[in-house]
């Protein structure tokens, strides 16, 4: 299974899961509208990760990108 942190720029697919025990990450992602099932598009992978969900672009660091499983 791939995460946002190890996927190439330009990838389009959907979010499978947000895999983490950290409550703060889950809360933050939900607040931004990042849910399993949302379609996702990877805009950028360096120096930080930028992806698009719906009409929103979100930038996250590697720690958070590592928790977002996609397919």
């Amino acid at each position: 299974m791939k995460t946002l942190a190890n996927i190439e720029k330009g990838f389009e697919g959907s979010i499978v899961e947000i895999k983490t025990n950290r409550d703060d990450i889950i809360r933050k992602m939900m607040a931004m509208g990042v849910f399993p099932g949302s379609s996702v598009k990877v805009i950028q992978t360096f120096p930080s990760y930028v992806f698009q969900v719906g009409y929103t672009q979100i930038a996250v660091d590697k720690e958070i990108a590592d928790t977002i499983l996609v397919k």
Partner: protein
Amino acid sequence: MKSFNDVETLNNNESIIDEKVLERKEAEKIVLVGTPNVGKSVLFNRLTKSYVTVSNYPGTTVEVSRGKGIIGNKEYEIIDTPGMYSFMCITEEEKVTKRLLFKEKPDAVIHVIDAKNLERMLPLTFQLIESELPVLLVLNIMDEARRLGLKIDVRKLEEKLGIPVISTTAALNEGIDTLKERIDKYVNRV
């Protein structure tokens, strides 16, 4: 949270008559809420004429801005709050907003959202409705939504949510008059 307590002290220590007098003296309040980057501050500027306190900073509104504005033929106190995503607070700013929402007893709460992000921003509208706050939904930045080819059936959304829904482009002064009319009607409903 402190604000929950306040209601009890009010109920216990003051007679109902006193409370009513108190309420009449205060200007009616309108609170703007929403996430950062939805044009809340611009809308605030459109609704207010004079500033009492303003100090907003990038992305977040550090301090709460209050201004006075005339809607219909009444003067209101209009309050712009720090960005808030959800009632489950993550940041200090959200806590400030949540506290303010309940403490100020607003006569109207205007939830400002970025129209194209309707889907992502509706959950906060639900939470405001669930809290039984007097909420109006403003679909702002309509010009960008239009540019993306998005069309929103405002009437249908209104029907589904059971609250007034108004579309605006605050930066271009679009829909502001309609918004004012709707606020006036909503606050003075029986």
